[in-house]
Protein backbone atom coordinates (compact mmCIF):
# COMPACT_ATOMS: atom_id res chain seq x y z
CA UNK A 1 0.00 0.00 0.00
CA UNK A 2 1.20 3.46 -0.76
CA UNK A 3 -0.34 5.80 1.77
CA UNK A 4 -0.42 8.80 -0.50
CA UNK A 5 -2.54 7.02 -3.02
CA UNK A 6 -5.09 5.73 -0.54
CA UNK A 7 -8.35 7.74 -0.52
CA UNK A 8 -8.73 7.06 3.22
CA UNK A 9 -5.32 8.48 3.97
CA UNK A 10 -6.00 11.51 1.83
CA UNK A 11 -9.29 12.14 3.67
CA UNK A 12 -7.45 11.81 6.98
CA UNK A 13 -4.91 14.41 5.85
CA UNK A 14 -7.70 16.85 4.94
CA UNK A 15 -9.30 16.41 8.37
CA UNK A 16 -5.92 16.91 10.08
CA UNK A 17 -5.29 20.07 8.10
CA UNK A 18 -8.73 21.45 8.97
CA UNK A 19 -8.19 20.66 12.64
CA UNK A 20 -4.86 22.47 12.77
CA UNK A 21 -6.34 25.55 11.07
CA UNK A 22 -9.10 25.60 13.65
CA UNK A 23 -6.48 25.40 16.40
CA UNK A 24 -4.63 28.41 14.94
CA UNK A 25 -7.78 30.45 14.62
CA UNK A 26 -8.76 29.99 18.26
CA UNK A 27 -5.37 30.98 19.61
CA UNK A 28 -5.36 34.59 20.94
CA UNK A 29 -3.15 36.85 18.84
CA UNK A 30 -0.44 38.72 20.77
CA UNK A 31 -0.71 42.47 20.45
CA UNK A 32 2.37 44.55 19.71
CA UNK A 33 4.29 46.47 17.07
CA UNK A 34 3.80 45.12 13.61
CA UNK A 35 7.13 44.27 12.05
CA UNK A 36 7.69 45.24 8.44
CA UNK A 37 7.17 42.14 6.42
CA UNK A 38 10.07 41.21 4.18
CA UNK A 39 8.79 39.32 1.18
CA UNK A 40 10.27 35.85 1.11
CA UNK A 41 11.75 35.18 -2.29
CA UNK A 42 10.67 32.04 -4.05
CA UNK A 43 12.96 29.19 -3.14
CA UNK A 44 14.57 29.05 -6.57
CA UNK A 45 16.06 32.49 -5.95
CA UNK A 46 17.72 31.39 -2.73
CA UNK A 47 21.47 31.75 -2.58
CA UNK A 48 23.13 28.56 -3.76
CA UNK A 49 24.09 26.36 -0.85
CA UNK A 50 24.87 22.76 -0.23
CA UNK A 51 22.26 20.28 -1.36
CA UNK A 52 19.90 20.33 -4.31
CA UNK A 53 16.87 22.58 -4.28
CA UNK A 54 13.89 20.61 -5.47
CA UNK A 55 11.29 22.36 -7.54
CA UNK A 56 8.17 22.71 -5.43
CA UNK A 57 5.10 20.65 -6.24
CA UNK A 58 2.22 22.28 -7.99
CA UNK A 59 -0.49 23.20 -5.52
CA UNK A 60 -4.13 24.08 -5.75
CA UNK A 61 -6.85 22.49 -7.82
CA UNK A 62 -5.51 20.53 -10.80
CA UNK A 63 -6.37 21.52 -14.35
CA UNK A 64 -9.17 19.20 -15.46
CA UNK A 65 -7.83 16.57 -17.85
CA UNK A 66 -4.23 17.18 -16.79
CA UNK A 67 -1.70 14.66 -15.64
CA UNK A 68 -2.04 15.97 -12.08
CA UNK A 69 -5.80 15.72 -12.28
CA UNK A 70 -5.40 12.06 -13.26
CA UNK A 71 -3.06 11.33 -10.37
CA UNK A 72 -5.27 13.04 -7.78
CA UNK A 73 -8.71 12.17 -9.04
CA UNK A 74 -8.26 8.84 -10.80
CA UNK A 75 -5.22 7.28 -9.08
CA UNK A 76 -2.17 6.24 -11.09
CA UNK A 77 -0.90 3.14 -9.29
CA UNK A 78 -2.18 -0.40 -8.83
CA UNK A 79 -0.32 -3.09 -6.92
CA UNK A 80 0.37 -6.78 -7.39
CA UNK A 81 1.29 -9.75 -5.22
CA UNK A 82 4.80 -11.30 -5.42
CA UNK A 83 5.45 -12.76 -8.90
CA UNK A 84 1.76 -12.25 -9.81
CA UNK A 85 0.15 -10.15 -12.51
CA UNK A 86 -3.55 -10.73 -11.92
CA UNK A 87 -5.58 -7.55 -11.38
CA UNK A 88 -6.83 -7.66 -7.78
CA UNK A 89 -10.23 -6.35 -6.58
CA UNK A 90 -8.45 -3.39 -5.05
CA UNK A 91 -6.67 -2.67 -8.32
CA UNK A 92 -9.91 -3.03 -10.24
CA UNK A 93 -11.48 -0.23 -8.19
CA UNK A 94 -8.60 2.10 -9.13
CA UNK A 95 -8.68 1.03 -12.79
CA UNK A 96 -12.45 1.60 -12.99
CA UNK A 97 -11.79 5.17 -11.85
CA UNK A 98 -8.97 5.49 -14.41
CA UNK A 99 -11.26 4.18 -17.17
CA UNK A 100 -14.03 6.60 -16.23
CA UNK A 101 -11.58 9.53 -16.12
CA UNK A 102 -10.09 8.57 -19.49
CA UNK A 103 -13.59 8.28 -20.97
CA UNK A 104 -14.14 11.89 -19.88
CA UNK A 105 -10.95 13.08 -21.64
CA UNK A 106 -10.81 11.21 -24.97
CA UNK A 107 -7.75 13.12 -26.24
CA UNK A 108 -5.58 11.81 -23.41
CA UNK A 109 -3.05 9.03 -24.08
CA UNK A 110 -1.43 6.94 -21.38
CA UNK A 111 1.63 4.79 -20.88
CA UNK A 112 1.40 1.91 -18.46
CA UNK A 113 4.74 1.16 -16.83
CA UNK A 114 5.07 -2.31 -15.32
CA UNK A 115 7.36 -2.52 -12.29
CA UNK A 116 8.64 -5.26 -10.02
CA UNK A 117 10.32 -5.55 -6.66
CA UNK A 118 14.07 -6.25 -6.56
CA UNK A 119 13.64 -9.84 -5.34
CA UNK A 120 14.19 -11.41 -8.72
CA UNK A 121 16.72 -11.39 -11.51
CA UNK A 122 16.84 -8.57 -14.03
CA UNK A 123 15.68 -10.31 -17.18
CA UNK A 124 12.85 -12.25 -15.56
CA UNK A 125 11.65 -9.00 -14.01
CA UNK A 126 11.50 -7.23 -17.36
CA UNK A 127 9.17 -10.02 -18.47
CA UNK A 128 7.13 -9.84 -15.26
CA UNK A 129 6.77 -6.06 -15.50
CA UNK A 130 5.54 -6.45 -19.09
CA UNK A 131 2.89 -8.90 -17.89
CA UNK A 132 1.67 -6.42 -15.27
CA UNK A 133 1.54 -3.51 -17.71
CA UNK A 134 -0.41 -5.62 -20.20
CA UNK A 135 -2.81 -6.94 -17.55
CA UNK A 136 -3.71 -3.32 -16.75
CA UNK A 137 -3.93 -2.46 -20.42
CA UNK A 138 -6.25 -5.40 -21.07
CA UNK A 139 -8.47 -4.38 -18.17
CA UNK A 140 -8.76 -0.78 -19.38
CA UNK A 141 -9.54 -2.01 -22.91
CA UNK A 142 -12.24 -4.27 -21.47
CA UNK A 143 -13.72 -1.12 -19.94
CA UNK A 144 -14.00 0.45 -23.37
CA UNK A 145 -10.74 2.34 -23.71
CA UNK A 146 -9.29 2.28 -27.21
CA UNK A 147 -6.02 0.28 -27.39
CA UNK A 148 -4.61 3.06 -29.60
CA UNK A 149 -4.56 5.37 -26.57
CA UNK A 150 -2.41 3.02 -24.49
CA UNK A 151 1.29 2.22 -24.65
CA UNK A 152 2.95 -0.27 -22.35
CA UNK A 153 6.52 -0.59 -21.15
CA UNK A 154 8.29 -2.65 -18.51
CA UNK A 155 10.92 -1.14 -16.26
CA UNK A 156 11.41 -4.44 -14.43
CA UNK A 157 13.13 -3.73 -11.12
CA UNK A 158 15.10 -0.78 -12.53
CA UNK A 159 12.88 2.22 -11.69
CA UNK A 160 11.55 1.60 -8.17
CA UNK A 161 9.01 4.16 -6.89
CA UNK A 162 10.09 3.26 -3.35
CA UNK A 163 13.87 3.33 -3.15
CA UNK A 164 14.19 1.96 0.37
CA UNK A 165 15.11 -1.67 1.02
CA UNK A 166 12.79 -4.22 2.57
CA UNK A 167 9.36 -5.82 2.40
CA UNK A 168 7.41 -2.53 2.47
CA UNK A 169 9.41 -1.12 -0.44
CA UNK A 170 9.06 -4.40 -2.31
CA UNK A 171 5.27 -4.31 -2.04
CA UNK A 172 5.19 -0.68 -3.26
CA UNK A 173 7.42 -1.54 -6.20
CA UNK A 174 5.22 -4.37 -7.50
CA UNK A 175 2.99 -2.06 -9.46
CA UNK A 176 1.69 -0.82 -12.75
CA UNK A 177 2.01 2.93 -13.05
CA UNK A 178 -0.32 4.72 -15.45
CA UNK A 179 1.28 7.87 -16.85
CA UNK A 180 -0.60 10.50 -18.82
CA UNK A 181 1.56 11.14 -21.90
CA UNK A 182 -0.62 13.54 -23.85
CA UNK A 183 -3.00 15.75 -21.93
CA UNK A 184 -4.28 19.21 -21.05
CA UNK A 185 -1.64 21.40 -19.35
Amino acid at each position, binding site marked *: MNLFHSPTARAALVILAAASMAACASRPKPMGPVATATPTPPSRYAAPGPGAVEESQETGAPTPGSSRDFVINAGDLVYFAFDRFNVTDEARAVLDTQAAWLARYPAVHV*RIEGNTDERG*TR*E*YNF*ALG*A*RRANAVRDYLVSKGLSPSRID*TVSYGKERPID*TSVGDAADSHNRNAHTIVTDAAR
Partner: protein
Amino acid sequence: MRSCKVVLAALAAALVANLTAVAPASAEIVINVDQGDTQPLPIAIPSFGGAPVAGQLSDVVTADLKRSGLFRPLDAGAFPPLGSDVNLQPQFDAWKAVSAQALLTGHVAADGDGHLRADFRLWDVYAGEQLLGMEFTSTPQNWRRVAHKIADAVYEKLTGEQGYFDTRVVFVAESGTRAKPVRRLEIMDQDGANPSYLTDGSYLVFTPRFSANSQEITYMALRPTGSTLYLLNIDTGRQEALGHFPGMVFAPRFSPDGRKVVFSAEKAGDTDVYVMDLASHAVARLTTDPAIDTSPSFSPDAGRVVFNSDRGGSPQLYVMNADGSNVNRISFGSGRYTTPVWSPDGKLIAFTKQEGGQFHIGVMRPDGSNERLLTSSYLDEGPTWAPNSRVILFSRDTGGPGAHLWTVDVSGRLLAPAPYALRASDPAWSSLLR
Protein backbone atom coordinates in the same frame (compact mmCIF):
# COMPACT_ATOMS: atom_id res chain seq x y z
CA MET B 1 26.97 8.41 -28.01
CA ARG B 2 30.36 9.87 -27.20
CA SER B 3 33.50 8.49 -28.61
CA CYS B 4 33.44 4.93 -27.47
CA LYS B 5 36.44 3.68 -29.29
CA VAL B 6 38.59 1.38 -27.26
CA VAL B 7 41.96 1.12 -28.77
CA LEU B 8 42.94 -2.43 -29.37
CA ALA B 9 45.20 -1.42 -32.18
CA ALA B 10 48.15 -2.62 -30.22
CA LEU B 11 46.72 -6.07 -30.69
CA ALA B 12 47.75 -5.84 -34.29
CA ALA B 13 51.31 -6.15 -33.14
CA ALA B 14 50.74 -9.80 -32.42
CA LEU B 15 52.15 -11.34 -29.34
CA VAL B 16 54.66 -13.87 -30.48
CA ALA B 17 55.51 -16.76 -28.26
CA ASN B 18 58.63 -18.79 -28.76
CA LEU B 19 59.09 -21.95 -26.85
CA THR B 20 62.77 -21.96 -26.09
CA ALA B 21 63.61 -24.85 -23.86
CA VAL B 22 60.65 -26.91 -22.80
CA ALA B 23 61.48 -29.40 -20.13
CA PRO B 24 60.15 -32.96 -20.30
CA ALA B 25 56.57 -33.15 -19.10
CA SER B 26 57.40 -34.66 -15.76
CA ALA B 27 56.20 -31.87 -13.54
CA GLU B 28 56.05 -33.01 -9.95
CA ILE B 29 54.11 -30.03 -8.73
CA VAL B 30 50.55 -29.94 -9.94
CA ILE B 31 47.67 -27.96 -8.53
CA ASN B 32 44.48 -29.95 -8.54
CA VAL B 33 41.82 -27.31 -9.16
CA ASP B 34 39.02 -29.72 -8.35
CA GLN B 35 40.16 -30.45 -4.83
CA GLY B 36 38.29 -28.45 -2.22
CA ASP B 37 41.10 -28.41 0.33
CA THR B 38 44.03 -27.49 -1.88
CA GLN B 39 46.45 -25.10 -0.25
CA PRO B 40 47.67 -22.37 -2.58
CA LEU B 41 51.03 -23.22 -4.11
CA PRO B 42 53.96 -21.23 -2.69
CA ILE B 43 55.63 -19.58 -5.66
CA ALA B 44 58.60 -17.22 -5.71
CA ILE B 45 58.47 -14.50 -8.35
CA PRO B 46 61.52 -12.29 -7.97
CA SER B 47 61.13 -8.96 -9.72
CA PHE B 48 62.02 -9.37 -13.41
CA GLY B 49 65.18 -7.63 -14.53
CA GLY B 50 66.04 -5.67 -17.67
CA ALA B 51 63.92 -2.88 -19.10
CA PRO B 52 62.41 -0.28 -16.71
CA VAL B 53 58.94 -1.86 -17.10
CA ALA B 54 60.21 -5.31 -16.07
CA GLY B 55 59.42 -4.90 -12.36
CA GLN B 56 55.85 -3.73 -13.05
CA LEU B 57 55.43 -6.59 -15.48
CA SER B 58 56.33 -9.23 -12.89
CA ASP B 59 54.07 -7.44 -10.37
CA VAL B 60 51.13 -7.95 -12.75
CA VAL B 61 52.02 -11.64 -13.15
CA THR B 62 52.21 -11.98 -9.36
CA ALA B 63 48.86 -10.24 -8.82
CA ASP B 64 47.11 -12.43 -11.42
CA LEU B 65 48.37 -15.65 -9.89
CA LYS B 66 47.59 -14.50 -6.36
CA ARG B 67 44.02 -13.42 -7.24
CA SER B 68 43.30 -16.87 -8.68
CA GLY B 69 43.53 -18.19 -5.13
CA LEU B 70 45.58 -21.16 -6.33
CA PHE B 71 49.01 -19.56 -5.78
CA ARG B 72 50.67 -17.96 -2.78
CA PRO B 73 53.37 -15.60 -4.03
CA LEU B 74 56.11 -15.41 -1.42
CA ASP B 75 57.48 -12.29 0.22
CA ALA B 76 60.36 -11.04 -1.90
CA GLY B 77 62.16 -9.67 1.17
CA ALA B 78 63.55 -13.11 2.04
CA PHE B 79 64.60 -14.10 -1.48
CA PRO B 80 68.15 -15.26 -2.13
CA PRO B 81 70.14 -13.31 -4.73
CA LEU B 82 69.48 -14.22 -8.33
CA GLY B 83 71.82 -13.93 -11.27
CA SER B 84 70.82 -11.63 -14.10
CA ASP B 85 70.93 -14.39 -16.71
CA VAL B 86 67.59 -16.26 -16.83
CA ASN B 87 69.32 -19.15 -18.59
CA LEU B 88 71.41 -19.99 -15.57
CA GLN B 89 69.98 -22.67 -13.33
CA PRO B 90 68.95 -21.20 -9.94
CA GLN B 91 70.42 -22.40 -6.65
CA PHE B 92 67.45 -24.62 -5.75
CA ASP B 93 68.54 -25.22 -2.15
CA ALA B 94 68.38 -21.51 -1.46
CA TRP B 95 64.82 -21.36 -2.86
CA LYS B 96 63.80 -24.42 -0.84
CA ALA B 97 64.98 -22.52 2.22
CA VAL B 98 62.33 -19.86 1.61
CA SER B 99 59.65 -22.56 1.11
CA ALA B 100 59.22 -21.92 -2.59
CA GLN B 101 57.87 -24.87 -4.55
CA ALA B 102 57.82 -23.06 -7.86
CA LEU B 103 60.09 -20.27 -9.03
CA LEU B 104 59.38 -17.89 -11.89
CA THR B 105 62.27 -15.86 -13.24
CA GLY B 106 62.22 -13.46 -16.12
CA HIS B 107 64.03 -10.81 -18.07
CA VAL B 108 62.48 -8.06 -20.20
CA ALA B 109 64.44 -6.33 -22.93
CA ALA B 110 63.60 -3.52 -25.32
CA ASP B 111 64.73 -4.51 -28.81
CA GLY B 112 66.43 -2.15 -31.19
CA ASP B 113 63.33 -2.25 -33.41
CA GLY B 114 61.15 -0.97 -30.57
CA HIS B 115 59.80 -4.34 -29.51
CA LEU B 116 59.55 -5.65 -25.99
CA ARG B 117 60.93 -9.15 -25.40
CA ALA B 118 59.94 -10.93 -22.21
CA ASP B 119 61.89 -14.12 -21.54
CA PHE B 120 60.87 -16.27 -18.59
CA ARG B 121 61.52 -19.62 -16.92
CA LEU B 122 59.33 -21.59 -14.57
CA TRP B 123 61.22 -23.92 -12.25
CA ASP B 124 60.19 -26.83 -10.06
CA VAL B 125 62.30 -26.10 -6.99
CA TYR B 126 62.11 -29.57 -5.39
CA ALA B 127 62.60 -31.55 -8.61
CA GLY B 128 65.33 -29.11 -9.56
CA GLU B 129 64.19 -28.75 -13.13
CA GLN B 130 62.79 -26.28 -15.62
CA LEU B 131 59.05 -26.65 -16.33
CA LEU B 132 58.66 -23.89 -18.87
CA GLY B 133 60.82 -21.53 -20.86
CA MET B 134 59.16 -19.03 -23.17
CA GLU B 135 59.61 -15.67 -24.73
CA PHE B 136 56.87 -13.19 -25.66
CA THR B 137 57.49 -10.35 -28.07
CA SER B 138 55.17 -7.37 -28.28
CA THR B 139 54.97 -3.61 -28.55
CA PRO B 140 56.05 -1.78 -25.36
CA GLN B 141 52.53 -0.41 -24.69
CA ASN B 142 51.26 -3.98 -24.60
CA TRP B 143 53.36 -4.93 -21.59
CA ARG B 144 50.37 -5.71 -19.36
CA ARG B 145 49.10 -8.24 -21.91
CA VAL B 146 52.53 -9.83 -21.97
CA ALA B 147 52.32 -10.16 -18.18
CA HIS B 148 48.85 -11.74 -18.42
CA LYS B 149 50.11 -14.20 -21.04
CA ILE B 150 53.00 -15.20 -18.78
CA ALA B 151 50.56 -15.68 -15.89
CA ASP B 152 48.34 -17.79 -18.18
CA ALA B 153 51.33 -19.95 -19.17
CA VAL B 154 52.29 -20.52 -15.53
CA TYR B 155 48.69 -21.24 -14.53
CA GLU B 156 48.29 -23.68 -17.40
CA LYS B 157 51.54 -25.49 -16.67
CA LEU B 158 50.83 -25.91 -12.96
CA THR B 159 47.07 -26.60 -13.02
CA GLY B 160 46.69 -28.39 -16.33
CA GLU B 161 43.84 -25.96 -17.10
CA GLN B 162 43.81 -23.15 -19.63
CA GLY B 163 44.49 -19.74 -18.10
CA TYR B 164 42.10 -16.79 -18.11
CA PHE B 165 44.23 -13.74 -17.31
CA ASP B 166 44.60 -12.29 -20.82
CA THR B 167 40.92 -11.39 -20.91
CA ARG B 168 38.63 -8.44 -20.40
CA VAL B 169 35.36 -7.84 -18.63
CA VAL B 170 32.45 -5.66 -19.75
CA PHE B 171 29.83 -4.67 -17.19
CA VAL B 172 27.39 -1.96 -16.16
CA ALA B 173 28.95 0.78 -14.02
CA GLU B 174 26.30 2.11 -11.68
CA SER B 175 26.17 5.62 -10.29
CA GLY B 176 23.49 8.14 -9.33
CA THR B 177 20.81 7.28 -6.82
CA ARG B 178 18.26 4.50 -6.76
CA ALA B 179 15.66 7.05 -7.76
CA LYS B 180 17.84 8.53 -10.50
CA PRO B 181 20.19 5.78 -11.56
CA VAL B 182 22.98 6.34 -14.08
CA ARG B 183 24.28 3.28 -15.87
CA ARG B 184 27.17 3.12 -18.30
CA LEU B 185 28.78 0.22 -20.08
CA GLU B 186 32.38 -0.10 -18.97
CA ILE B 187 35.15 -2.39 -20.12
CA MET B 188 38.38 -3.24 -18.32
CA ASP B 189 41.10 -5.87 -18.23
CA GLN B 190 40.15 -8.76 -15.92
CA ASP B 191 42.55 -7.37 -13.30
CA GLY B 192 40.81 -3.97 -13.30
CA ALA B 193 43.40 -2.15 -15.42
CA ASN B 194 42.58 0.02 -18.45
CA PRO B 195 38.97 0.85 -17.54
CA SER B 196 37.03 2.66 -20.25
CA TYR B 197 33.38 3.71 -20.60
CA LEU B 198 31.57 2.55 -23.71
CA THR B 199 28.33 4.54 -23.27
CA ASP B 200 27.78 8.02 -21.85
CA GLY B 201 25.01 7.38 -19.31
CA SER B 202 22.32 9.30 -21.21
CA TYR B 203 20.20 6.14 -21.25
CA LEU B 204 20.02 3.07 -19.03
CA VAL B 205 21.99 0.03 -20.16
CA PHE B 206 21.83 -3.61 -19.10
CA THR B 207 23.25 -7.07 -19.72
CA PRO B 208 26.22 -6.49 -22.07
CA ARG B 209 27.58 -9.72 -23.58
CA PHE B 210 30.69 -10.37 -25.69
CA SER B 211 30.80 -12.04 -29.05
CA ALA B 212 33.16 -14.99 -29.41
CA ASN B 213 35.98 -12.80 -30.71
CA SER B 214 35.33 -10.27 -27.91
CA GLN B 215 35.27 -7.37 -30.38
CA GLU B 216 31.51 -6.93 -30.31
CA ILE B 217 29.06 -6.46 -27.49
CA THR B 218 25.31 -6.88 -27.53
CA TYR B 219 23.32 -5.18 -24.79
CA MET B 220 19.93 -3.79 -23.86
CA ALA B 221 19.10 -0.10 -23.58
CA LEU B 222 16.07 1.07 -21.62
CA ARG B 223 14.40 4.40 -22.28
CA PRO B 224 11.10 5.68 -20.82
CA THR B 225 9.17 4.46 -23.86
CA GLY B 226 10.75 1.04 -24.29
CA SER B 227 13.85 -1.02 -24.85
CA THR B 228 16.30 -1.57 -27.69
CA LEU B 229 18.94 -4.22 -28.33
CA TYR B 230 22.23 -2.94 -29.65
CA LEU B 231 25.27 -4.37 -31.31
CA LEU B 232 28.38 -2.37 -30.43
CA ASN B 233 31.75 -2.81 -32.11
CA ILE B 234 34.36 -1.88 -29.50
CA ASP B 235 37.06 -1.48 -32.14
CA THR B 236 35.22 1.14 -34.16
CA GLY B 237 32.75 2.44 -31.56
CA ARG B 238 29.94 1.98 -34.07
CA GLN B 239 26.68 0.57 -32.86
CA GLU B 240 23.46 -0.50 -34.52
CA ALA B 241 20.01 -1.34 -33.21
CA LEU B 242 19.01 -4.96 -33.66
CA GLY B 243 15.69 -4.42 -35.37
CA HIS B 244 12.51 -2.83 -34.05
CA PHE B 245 9.98 -4.67 -31.99
CA PRO B 246 6.49 -3.72 -30.81
CA GLY B 247 7.11 -4.73 -27.19
CA MET B 248 10.00 -5.13 -24.77
CA VAL B 249 13.20 -6.76 -26.01
CA PHE B 250 15.88 -7.93 -23.60
CA ALA B 251 18.27 -10.72 -22.59
CA PRO B 252 20.46 -10.73 -25.74
CA ARG B 253 23.33 -13.18 -26.04
CA PHE B 254 25.54 -14.20 -28.97
CA SER B 255 25.65 -17.65 -30.50
CA PRO B 256 29.09 -19.29 -30.10
CA ASP B 257 30.08 -18.37 -33.69
CA GLY B 258 28.96 -14.76 -33.19
CA ARG B 259 26.63 -14.85 -36.19
CA LYS B 260 23.36 -14.88 -34.27
CA VAL B 261 21.88 -13.25 -31.21
CA VAL B 262 19.34 -15.11 -29.10
CA PHE B 263 17.07 -12.88 -27.01
CA SER B 264 13.65 -12.37 -25.47
CA ALA B 265 10.86 -10.31 -26.99
CA GLU B 266 7.49 -9.56 -25.45
CA LYS B 267 4.21 -9.24 -27.31
CA ALA B 268 1.03 -8.31 -25.41
CA GLY B 269 2.63 -9.41 -22.15
CA ASP B 270 3.90 -12.78 -23.40
CA THR B 271 7.70 -13.14 -23.42
CA ASP B 272 9.29 -15.70 -25.74
CA VAL B 273 12.78 -16.60 -26.95
CA TYR B 274 13.79 -15.58 -30.47
CA VAL B 275 16.99 -15.80 -32.49
CA MET B 276 18.21 -13.25 -35.01
CA ASP B 277 20.64 -13.92 -37.83
CA LEU B 278 22.94 -10.90 -37.77
CA ALA B 279 23.73 -10.95 -41.50
CA SER B 280 20.12 -11.07 -42.74
CA HIS B 281 18.36 -9.75 -39.59
CA ALA B 282 15.91 -12.63 -40.07
CA VAL B 283 14.20 -13.51 -36.79
CA ALA B 284 12.98 -16.97 -35.80
CA ARG B 285 10.78 -17.68 -32.80
CA LEU B 286 12.04 -20.53 -30.62
CA THR B 287 9.38 -20.74 -27.88
CA THR B 288 5.60 -20.34 -28.12
CA ASP B 289 4.47 -21.08 -24.58
CA PRO B 290 2.29 -18.34 -22.99
CA ALA B 291 4.65 -18.39 -20.00
CA ILE B 292 7.71 -16.18 -19.49
CA ASP B 293 10.60 -17.61 -21.55
CA THR B 294 13.80 -15.62 -21.12
CA SER B 295 17.57 -15.55 -20.40
CA PRO B 296 18.56 -17.86 -23.27
CA SER B 297 22.15 -19.11 -23.55
CA PHE B 298 23.61 -21.32 -26.27
CA SER B 299 25.60 -24.47 -25.58
CA PRO B 300 29.18 -24.03 -26.87
CA ASP B 301 28.48 -26.48 -29.74
CA ALA B 302 25.48 -24.26 -30.68
CA GLY B 303 23.22 -27.31 -30.72
CA ARG B 304 21.12 -26.40 -27.69
CA VAL B 305 19.81 -23.41 -25.75
CA VAL B 306 19.23 -23.26 -22.00
CA PHE B 307 16.65 -20.71 -20.83
CA ASN B 308 14.41 -19.91 -17.92
CA SER B 309 10.64 -20.29 -17.99
CA ASP B 310 7.79 -20.18 -15.49
CA ARG B 311 5.63 -22.51 -17.59
CA GLY B 312 5.66 -25.00 -14.71
CA GLY B 313 4.38 -22.41 -12.23
CA SER B 314 7.67 -20.93 -11.04
CA PRO B 315 10.87 -19.93 -12.85
CA GLN B 316 12.89 -23.04 -13.69
CA LEU B 317 15.60 -23.97 -16.18
CA TYR B 318 14.86 -25.69 -19.48
CA VAL B 319 17.04 -26.93 -22.33
CA MET B 320 15.83 -27.09 -25.93
CA ASN B 321 17.39 -27.79 -29.30
CA ALA B 322 18.64 -24.68 -31.10
CA ASP B 323 15.57 -24.80 -33.38
CA GLY B 324 13.20 -24.75 -30.39
CA SER B 325 12.34 -28.45 -30.44
CA ASN B 326 12.68 -31.01 -27.66
CA VAL B 327 12.21 -28.81 -24.58
CA ASN B 328 13.23 -30.46 -21.31
CA ARG B 329 13.11 -29.10 -17.79
CA ILE B 330 16.45 -29.58 -16.00
CA SER B 331 16.00 -27.85 -12.60
CA PHE B 332 13.90 -29.66 -10.04
CA GLY B 333 15.12 -28.40 -6.67
CA SER B 334 13.08 -26.12 -4.46
CA GLY B 335 13.37 -22.40 -5.15
CA ARG B 336 13.37 -20.24 -8.25
CA TYR B 337 16.00 -20.69 -10.97
CA THR B 338 16.93 -17.93 -13.42
CA THR B 339 19.80 -16.57 -15.63
CA PRO B 340 21.29 -19.88 -16.83
CA VAL B 341 24.65 -19.59 -18.62
CA TRP B 342 26.35 -22.49 -20.34
CA SER B 343 30.05 -22.90 -19.45
CA PRO B 344 32.53 -22.49 -22.32
CA ASP B 345 33.61 -26.14 -22.00
CA GLY B 346 29.97 -27.25 -22.14
CA LYS B 347 30.13 -29.25 -18.93
CA LEU B 348 28.17 -27.02 -16.57
CA ILE B 349 25.37 -24.48 -16.47
CA ALA B 350 25.68 -21.62 -13.99
CA PHE B 351 22.49 -19.99 -12.73
CA THR B 352 20.94 -17.73 -10.12
CA LYS B 353 18.76 -19.44 -7.52
CA GLN B 354 16.37 -17.71 -5.18
CA GLU B 355 15.40 -19.64 -2.10
CA GLY B 356 14.51 -18.83 1.49
CA GLY B 357 14.99 -15.08 1.11
CA GLN B 358 18.54 -15.50 -0.24
CA PHE B 359 20.01 -15.53 -3.73
CA HIS B 360 22.68 -17.99 -4.79
CA ILE B 361 24.99 -18.55 -7.72
CA GLY B 362 25.03 -22.26 -8.49
CA VAL B 363 26.10 -24.76 -11.11
CA MET B 364 24.60 -27.97 -12.45
CA ARG B 365 25.30 -30.32 -15.31
CA PRO B 366 23.34 -29.70 -18.51
CA ASP B 367 21.09 -32.67 -17.63
CA GLY B 368 20.27 -31.01 -14.30
CA SER B 369 22.30 -33.38 -12.13
CA ASN B 370 24.91 -32.45 -9.51
CA GLU B 371 23.46 -29.09 -8.53
CA ARG B 372 25.84 -27.18 -6.25
CA LEU B 373 25.29 -23.72 -4.77
CA LEU B 374 28.51 -21.70 -4.68
CA THR B 375 27.43 -18.44 -3.03
CA SER B 376 24.71 -16.91 -0.89
CA SER B 377 23.70 -13.31 -0.16
CA TYR B 378 20.79 -10.86 -0.15
CA LEU B 379 21.04 -10.61 -3.94
CA ASP B 380 23.61 -12.53 -5.99
CA GLU B 381 22.83 -12.41 -9.68
CA GLY B 382 24.00 -12.79 -13.26
CA PRO B 383 26.89 -15.28 -13.47
CA THR B 384 29.42 -15.16 -16.33
CA TRP B 385 32.16 -17.70 -16.98
CA ALA B 386 35.88 -17.18 -17.34
CA PRO B 387 36.93 -18.75 -20.67
CA ASN B 388 38.51 -21.72 -18.85
CA SER B 389 35.19 -22.60 -17.14
CA ARG B 390 36.85 -22.48 -13.70
CA VAL B 391 35.86 -19.06 -12.39
CA ILE B 392 32.51 -17.27 -12.31
CA LEU B 393 32.05 -13.52 -12.08
CA PHE B 394 28.72 -12.20 -10.78
CA SER B 395 27.15 -9.21 -9.04
CA ARG B 396 26.34 -9.09 -5.34
CA ASP B 397 24.10 -6.64 -3.50
CA THR B 398 24.09 -7.13 0.25
CA GLY B 399 20.97 -4.99 0.63
CA GLY B 400 21.85 -1.32 0.75
CA PRO B 401 25.18 -0.18 -0.64
CA GLY B 402 24.37 -1.33 -4.16
CA ALA B 403 25.77 -4.09 -6.33
CA HIS B 404 29.47 -4.94 -6.69
CA LEU B 405 31.34 -7.50 -8.77
CA TRP B 406 32.58 -10.70 -7.13
CA THR B 407 34.29 -13.87 -8.31
CA VAL B 408 33.91 -17.45 -7.16
CA ASP B 409 35.59 -20.56 -8.49
CA VAL B 410 33.53 -23.62 -9.44
CA SER B 411 34.47 -25.37 -6.21
CA GLY B 412 32.78 -22.53 -4.32
CA ARG B 413 35.87 -22.25 -2.13
CA LEU B 414 37.51 -19.15 -3.59
CA LEU B 415 35.11 -16.24 -3.17
CA ALA B 416 36.57 -12.76 -3.60
CA PRO B 417 35.60 -9.23 -4.61
CA ALA B 418 36.52 -8.50 -8.22
CA PRO B 419 39.16 -5.77 -8.79
CA TYR B 420 36.59 -2.99 -9.31
CA ALA B 421 35.76 -0.98 -6.22
CA LEU B 422 32.72 0.92 -7.48
CA ARG B 423 29.10 -0.11 -7.92
CA ALA B 424 28.63 -2.45 -10.87
CA SER B 425 26.41 -5.23 -12.20
CA ASP B 426 25.78 -7.49 -15.21
CA PRO B 427 29.40 -8.56 -15.83
CA ALA B 428 30.40 -10.51 -18.94
CA TRP B 429 33.78 -12.16 -19.32
CA SER B 430 35.52 -12.17 -22.71
CA SER B 431 37.16 -15.14 -24.33
CA LEU B 432 40.97 -15.28 -24.25
CA LEU B 433 42.26 -12.38 -26.33
CA ARG B 434 44.16 -13.11 -29.51
